[in-house]
């Protein structure tokens, strides 16, 4: 893992607007085949997806050299996600070896980071860290998942990733608990420090932060849809 220099950011693609997102979702829906057996023809690896630099890229973003994987499958046997989904750790590492990068961009970030795979890996690969490296590549090449953008934006505005409800505020007061630090007047300075640091590491540009106004609009839209969080 090298922190010696900051990785170069690729030119940012313009963020898709909300309408664009909806249109994309509609298109995706239309493309989805009806439930039934897997269409093998569409799932064949032709080699076009192959990226010969993928292994090097994984190392650059802090993963280990996946070429030393023995394909023993220990990782898969202990992975809680492999047990419940078609995504098997061993196969995913094989895909890394062959450079099938783009496949990963269509899989949600479902590694729990439990590190059981690392415990049982005779080649000391640590698949969990390989997936972290792939996430680094994904956010630089295709964009940031919405839940990351929302979480980082909230932390920058609020210092923490959660906001208390009114009854929790009342409970804290009644119990004589310390006030939440981000309600104290001095906390503005802390938020200023976070902003400075995120600018310094160019994290603000990488994530494409959401403003308070945008977050408010999103929340209102979610509430209108009856989404329960």
């Amino acid at each position, binding site marked *: *893992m090298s*922190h*010696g220099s*900051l990785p170069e950011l690729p030119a940012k693609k313009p963020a898709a607007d909300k309408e664009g997102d909806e249109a994309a979702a509609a298109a995706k829906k239309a493309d989805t085949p009806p439930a039934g057996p897997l269409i093998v023809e569409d799932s064949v690896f032709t080699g076009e997806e192959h990226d010969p630099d993928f292994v090097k890229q994984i190392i650059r*973003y*802090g993963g280990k050299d996946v070429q030393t994987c023995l394909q023993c499958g220990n990782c898969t046997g202990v992975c*809680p*996600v492999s*047990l*419940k*989904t078609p995504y098997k750790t061993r196969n995913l590492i094989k895909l890394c070896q062959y450079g099938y990068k783009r496949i990963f961009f269509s899989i*949600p*970030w*479902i*590694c*729990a*980071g*439990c*590190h*059981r795979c*690392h*415990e049982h890996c005779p080649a000391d690969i*640590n698949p969990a860290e390989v997936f*972290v490296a792939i*996430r*680094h590549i994904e*956010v630089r090449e295709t964009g*940031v*998942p919405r*839940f*990351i953008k929302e*979480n*980082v934006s909230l*932390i920058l505005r609020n*210092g*923490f*990733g*959660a*906001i*208390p409800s009114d009854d*929790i505020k009342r*409970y*804290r007061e009644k*119990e004589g*608990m*310390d006030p*939440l*630090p981000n309600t104290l007047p001095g*906390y503005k*300075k*802390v938020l200023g*420090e*976070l902003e*400075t*640091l*995120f600018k*310094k*590491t160019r*994290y603000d540009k*990488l994530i494409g932060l959401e403003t308070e106004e945008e977050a408010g609009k999103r929340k209102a839209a979610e509430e209108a849809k009856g989404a329960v969080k």
Partner: protein
Amino acid sequence: MRYALFVGCTIPNRFPGVENATRLILGKEHLDAELVPINEFTCCPALPTFYSTDRLTWLVTAARNLVLVQDKNADLVTLCNGCFSSLLKATEELENVNKCNVVNEALSAVGKQYRGRLARVEGHRNFYEPVKVRHLIEALYTDYGKETIAGKVQHPLEGLRLAVHYGCHLLRPTTRTSVDDPVNPVMLDTLVEASGAKSVDYNDKQACCGAGGGIRLQVPKLANAITKDKYESIHAVGADAIVTGCPYCLFQFDHAQKDLKVHPIPVLHISQLLALAFGIDAERLGFEWHFVAVRPFLKKLQAKGVA
């Protein structure tokens, strides 16, 4: 004992009873620790968010939190496995001089410098100075021990069968950070037994709760499917409650049981369990924010003359 509590995001804003229980059990009347207040902490920051997207930003943000305790002559004690894992990992990575220099270059923009260094190695654990990142479970186990804690118990929870859940990020990665044996950990079991209750063994005890790494946020169905296996093992041994040291595991066990519509088993943070055993009023422990009602468990305690 001088502790700077790092309560994080989930506990103060979702499970305030855990924060209150921790402050109460560490208070003068009970374990009598000196609590050093620090009001400039931020999110640890969360590994699935920050560590997944930019290792440098994660390390700089974590180092900023660590700098706040380095002159306080106090141990940083987390009540959450996520905060623990993120901050401890940061102290390890900052041992690398090159990384530390890059981080300090960024921190100088906000007038801060990180000075943590490896102080000693015991077994496979590294100890750092002056910043010591600890978890409440390990601090209670090491600094007080079973006998001292048992000595503070006013209402022994005798006859109760409890299933402990350590949670992945307390024990792994084990390379250097492990606080306890990752395969057969004892600390949480010991604390539960100090309360007078029995810690019951169950199948695949070290399995993941299902929520970690953003799974809960993105694919709740998958999170619940993972929890279901663990729940069934716990249900099979007839546990009265689940006890954990992590608010996110607590959240997941709580919510998954509601989503899966299963026979409810209450979930408690270890601080809340010890608070009950120490004779602290259950009404003060914030159980109203747990999704699985804790009342049936409290009734069992009352039937035994506790709470």
